[in-house]
């Protein structure tokens, strides 16, 4: 059946009409193939204009609508909704941008602007004739979340998801919950004991009716997509299968043990900052003079990142031991005491007599083990001399490094790691706790080094992100998506390689298919498929071709 297209041309007051001869364009539009009706409006987007569209659809039995006005980026949804109200599927709508990209940019050439407006409308009509109705099928979401990792991030995320009314399973590889927080003595800035934070949290998690904890368990397999993940977990009793709607990665990080660096592992008086925490916790710091070296193993060629928390932890611990009457030197490159609280901590430390000595990356401190102590010799550029200190204890501030099974996990979940081996978010700025893959989220130090408060904020953040699809109960798939023609696909897998979202997979026949819930509609797979077996809905080869060829026709 031949299409019946209605074309509505907006004057936009004088914004279009002053430069484009709108009545002439309307007359022209009426001559285009498939156009059953055309009219002009003062403001197509006004309620009056929208009513006219609806009336015309009914009166002229229109099955496709073209609006020539401003930009679809702001107005397409409005016109689409109007079409739907009049019973025309929203994907049978097309826009021609004759304002932002025509009248406004060709104000001195009204004749040419009019010609271009005609061309743009001809292109839109050509595409509209080939449009097909689409829908946005919804899929059900299993109201349950998997949290991988039972440290403070994982527990806080789990608690919040559970408090929002959804079931949670925590999978923790260690025998007990708690993660790295177990290794801390006191916490900044209120000097609570770590255990005072940790124990009540574990209590809450383990007694929450919606939370299940599987300790000494590991993720074994992950299949599926947002809303419907099938998870295999290896527990002490064998492999258990779970069905969840969303997944939260909260596996944390590990502290680097820098064997061989500054006599670590060779002299017992050399410890890491986290080992000092342990000693503080047990009250067994037996040293009167302590030297701490920052960036021990970070901001280096091997680990070119700053580990964010080490300066703050060093300053906090230095203050703790100073209170016990000990003398502390902190050798640093750049003090990373950022923000309100850590700046205050730094100032307190400086005023309490902790000595900060800057050193340069290319002139690291040298350590000599002597019977009466460790002789630390360091050139400090700000003092312009080599300072020597004989300490009883050397504390190395070492960076957090990715957990040993990060790679394995990333492959199982099909989410990427960054160049340092931490989990990589979907977008550095605006999607900091999402993965590009829908339904999977990341928080805490699995993402990058961060302090406890920041980890908790992220944990609560993913609790929101992971709950959104569960609260909605269904996820709507995009209509603008790819579809693989199974009769043409050769199973070469190139589409799977190029898809940035893992939205294609091989089915049991070895042929590619789109996972509707995951596809974002960019069309890269369609442009790539060697067999041209992929149709991009709403941007089909034929539609684009028709638009292009229409552009080259003479009016």
């Amino acid at each position, binding site marked *: 059946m031949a299409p019946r297209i209605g074309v509505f041309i907006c004057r936009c007051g004088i914004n279009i009409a002053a430069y484009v001869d709108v009545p002439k364009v309307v007359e022209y539009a009426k001559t285009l193939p498939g156009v059953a009706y055309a009219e002009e409006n003062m403001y197509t987007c006004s309620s009056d204009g929208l009513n006219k569209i609806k009336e015309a659809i009914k009166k002229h039995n229109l099955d496709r609508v073209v609006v020539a006005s401003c930009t679809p980026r702001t107005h397409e949804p409005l016109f689409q909704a109007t079409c739907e109200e009049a019973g025309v599927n929203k994907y049978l709508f097309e826009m021609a941008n004759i304002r932002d990209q025509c009248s406004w940019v060709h104000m001195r050439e009204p004749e040419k602007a009019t010609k271009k407006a005609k061309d743009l409308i001809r292109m839109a009509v050509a595409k509209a004739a080939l449009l097909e109705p689409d829908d946005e099928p919804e899929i059900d979401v299993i109201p349950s979340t998997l949290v991988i990792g039972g440290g403070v991030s994982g527990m806080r995320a789990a608690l919040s998801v559970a408090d929002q009314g959804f079931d949670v399973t925590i999978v923790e590889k260690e025998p007990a919950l708690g993660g790295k927080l177990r290794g801390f003595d006191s916490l900044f800035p209120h000097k609570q004991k770590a255990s005072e934070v940790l124990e009540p949290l574990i209590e809450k998690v383990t007694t929450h009716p919606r939370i299940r904890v599987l300790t000494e368990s590991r993720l074994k397999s992950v299949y599926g997509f947002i809303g419907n993940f099938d998870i295999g977990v290896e527990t002490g009793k064998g492999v258990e299968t779970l069905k969840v709607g969303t997944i939260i990665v909260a596996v944390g990080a590990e502290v680097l043990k820098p064997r061989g660096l500054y006599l670590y592992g060779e002299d017992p008086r050399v410890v890491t900052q986290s080992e000092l925490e342990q000693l503080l916790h047990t009250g067994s710091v037996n040293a009167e003079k302590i030297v701490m070296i920052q960036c021990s193993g970070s901001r280096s060629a091997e680990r070119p990142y700053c580990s964010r928390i080490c300066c703050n932890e060093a300053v906090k611990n230095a203050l703790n031991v100073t209170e016990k009457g000990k003398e502390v030197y902190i050798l640093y490159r750049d003090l990373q005491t950022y923000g309100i609280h850590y700046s205050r901590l730094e100032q307190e430390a400086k005023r309490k007599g902790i000595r900060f000595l800057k050193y340069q990356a290319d002139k690291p401190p040298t350590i000599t083990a002597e019977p009466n102590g460790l002789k630390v010799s360091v050139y400090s550029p700000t003092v312009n001399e080599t300072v020597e200190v004989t300490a009883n204890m050397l504390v190395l501030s070492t960076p957090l490094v990715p957990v040993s099974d990060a790679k394995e996990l990333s492959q199982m979940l099909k989410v990427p790691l960054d160049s340092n081996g931490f989990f990589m978010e979907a977008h550095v*700025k605006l999607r900091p706790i999402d993965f590009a893959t829908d339904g999977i989220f990341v928080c805490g130090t699995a993402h990058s080094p961060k302090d406890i408060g*920041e980890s908790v904020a992220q944990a609560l953040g993913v609790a929101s992100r992971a709950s959104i699809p569960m*609260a909605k109960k269904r996820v709507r798939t995009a209509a603008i998506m790819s579809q693989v023609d199974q009769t043409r696909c050769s199973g070469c897998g190139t589409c799977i390689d190029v898809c940035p979202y893992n939205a294609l997979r091989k089915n049991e026949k070895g042929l590619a298919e789109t996972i509707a819930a995951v596809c974002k509609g960019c069309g890269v797979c369609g442009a790539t498929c060697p067999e041209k077996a992929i149709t991009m809905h709403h941007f089909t080869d034929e539609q684009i071709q028709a638009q292009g060829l229409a552009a080259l026709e003479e009016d």
Partner: protein
Amino acid sequence: MKPVLVIGGGIAGIQASLDLADRGTKVHLVERTPSIGGVMAQLDKTFPTMDCSICILAPKMIECYRHPNITIHTQSEVVGLEGSVGDFNVKVLEHPRSVDSAKCTGCGLCSEKCPVKKPSTFQAGLGQRKAIYLAFPQAVPLIATIDREACLWFTKGVCRTCEKVCPSKAVDYEQKENVVELNVSSVIAATGFEQYNPKDIGEYGYGRYKNVLTALEFERLVCASGPTGGVLNRPSDGKVSHNIVFIQCVGSRTQTTGYPYCSSSCCMYATKEAVLIKEHEPSSHVTIFYMDLKTFGKGFQGFVDRAQSHWGVNYIRGRPGEIREDPVTKSLTILYENTEVGKVERVDADMVVLCTAAVPHRDNGKLAAVLGVPLDGYGFFEVGDPVSAPVETGKPGVYVCGSCHGPRDIPESVAEASATAAKAAEDAARAEVGQ
């Protein structure tokens, strides 16, 4: 389920609103200016990926505006709050736009014809706007507003040009203030920060020397949609600047003129701006004076390394003592000590950019009083327990996110915004089961 009130339409407020709206909760988003978008809308690029700021923000702004669950109240402020979590009664004062938002199409004709010029806030004062204006080209909502303090009709009772030229008859001088009363279950404050005004640091000459800019002013200058179209024309004579100096910690890390804390993002935005200069013109000389290079975020160190090795940005550890201006050429000389060498030297520059502190918004006191929550000693919203409750004010049901409780960068603000959404969702879930 009851709606949630979000105060502040910057990126944090937008994210909190979208999270809640997406899950089906109604949101009232209150913004004090004519458009949502906040400071991020003013930025050219974002570090460390050099993403175009408005490119990634504008779709979120539009999504927010079009979301059926979000009602945006622009040019509005929260003036009253009573009740408790699950049942807050809120008063929102909507200031008049003097333009009918249902009729205005954002065509900008009124602004074109308006005879009154004022410095544009969006262009950080470097460009001008009219008394009737669109906040910026990508403003959401794209609706004109009249600055009644500047408008000739409101100040002198003459003109009414905008009314005459408006093709859709949207200008309405009679619009009145309007108080909206809402009942909400939770409140999220995301009111952001302000830039420190460095005029008090006399030795740097800001306000006296035309070619000394703040980083936000520079951000507009370097932006393609800025007053010079992204060309680095310096303010004194329009000469294209190739020699630019950045000074860190202006109003930060000081007990005297400014605030004692580190503002957290300046080292990185300076690096970004330095790279932008180099991208525009690789032969430019760019020097950044810093105290500690704060590279603590994900990808930051790599970004600085690349700025140094690939782009040749010059980093010198030292806080310059003073800036002098050549009275004739208006070029600048910076006196500094390279503290890693111990020598005082001078460097000449076409332009100096002061990386100013992120400071509490001046309206925080008023809002905190309305909400009944504390501010810290500086005037930021205070979080009682930054370790265990990083977005909670201590008053149940009232949460904070983003830079209104201390300087932080965009991703931290976004993650925190989602965190407040989670807390609000928990409140709602509790209310539903009647706890």
